[in-house]
């Protein structure tokens, strides 16, 4: 192939498999530590009981998803500036990991709500917005898969990924500016009629901080890194297929 497209450079980037495996091991240990602290170290909430422990993962998953979707914005902007495929891969990894994490966020929230709010789901602005957030990024994946031309796919994905972030920002701010949500704001002041809020003691704060750090700085990057590796591998195979077809 005479035209050295940027995609070739991305596909032949150094491997780093050893580092990724090390990171994965660290993530696994830290994740188990966080889980253990949530189960054994943090104090039991007097009003809500054990189900309150889910809250550590609920918050971790949301902010992990937030970081992943922010990566999609960075990847999209950088792709449009440089047209280097590695940024599109970065953005795609952000979307997939973000969808998984925001699903965990929704699911843990829903399971917590059953005993506390006495319902699995309610059409509260923040819950609606969080659900829409997942749908936007599923739409991102559908838009992507509908485009055969790779360059077009990358460009549209970049644009859509940037637009989609509005739903993430909306989910974050809706609790602050809208008084009619029942979702409690654990950090800072929230709605007056929020239900299910709780006071945190020091063991709870420590556990929350540790779990947030694990989800944001370890779990999200690890999953994204694996996803990027998979995409680079897929690109290499596609390239070989095309080279094969060109010969034949």
């Amino acid at each position, binding site marked *: 192939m005479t035209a050295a497209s940027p995609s070739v450079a991305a596909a032949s980037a150094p491997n780093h498999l050893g580092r990724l495996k090390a990171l994965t091991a660290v993530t696994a240990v830290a994740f188990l530590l966080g889980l253990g602290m949530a189960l054994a170290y943090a104090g039991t909430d007097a009003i809500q009981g054990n189900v309150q422990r889910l809250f550590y993962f609920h918050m971790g998953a949301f902010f992990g998803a937030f970081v992943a979707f922010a990566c999609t914005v960075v990847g999209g902007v950088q792709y449009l500036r440089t047209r280097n495929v590695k940024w599109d891969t970065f953005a795609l990894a952000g979307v997939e990991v973000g969808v998984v994490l925001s699903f965990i966020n929704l699911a843990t929230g829903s399971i917590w709500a059953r005993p506390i709010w006495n319902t699995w789901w309610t059409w509260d602005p923040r819950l609606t917005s969080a659900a829409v957030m997942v749908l936007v990024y599923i739409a991102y994946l559908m838009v992507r898969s509908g485009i055969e031309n790779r360059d077009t796919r990358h460009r549209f994905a970049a644009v859509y990924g940037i637009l989609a972030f509005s739903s993430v920002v909306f989910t974050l701010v809706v609790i602050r500016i809208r008084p009619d949500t029942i979702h409690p704001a654990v950090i800072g002041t929230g709605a007056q009629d929020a239900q299910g809020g709780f006071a945190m003691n020091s063991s709870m704060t420590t556990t929350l901080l540790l779990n947030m750090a694990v989800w944001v700085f370890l779990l999200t990057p690890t999953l994204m890194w694996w996803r990027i590796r998979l995409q680079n*591998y897929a690109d290499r195979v596609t390239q070989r297929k095309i080279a094969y077809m060109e010969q034949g």
Partner: protein
Amino acid sequence: MTTPNTTDFMLLGIAVTLGAIALYVLSLWWRARSLKADEAMLEQE
């Protein structure tokens, strides 16, 4: 006031969390495996 017993819900939540992550990792592995199969086919021909 007694603390309600909500342990079942906690366990369900943890199971869903771990399950979701495990499923995603499994999907990554699955996709890598089918790529390997593609590559092997290219090599054969």
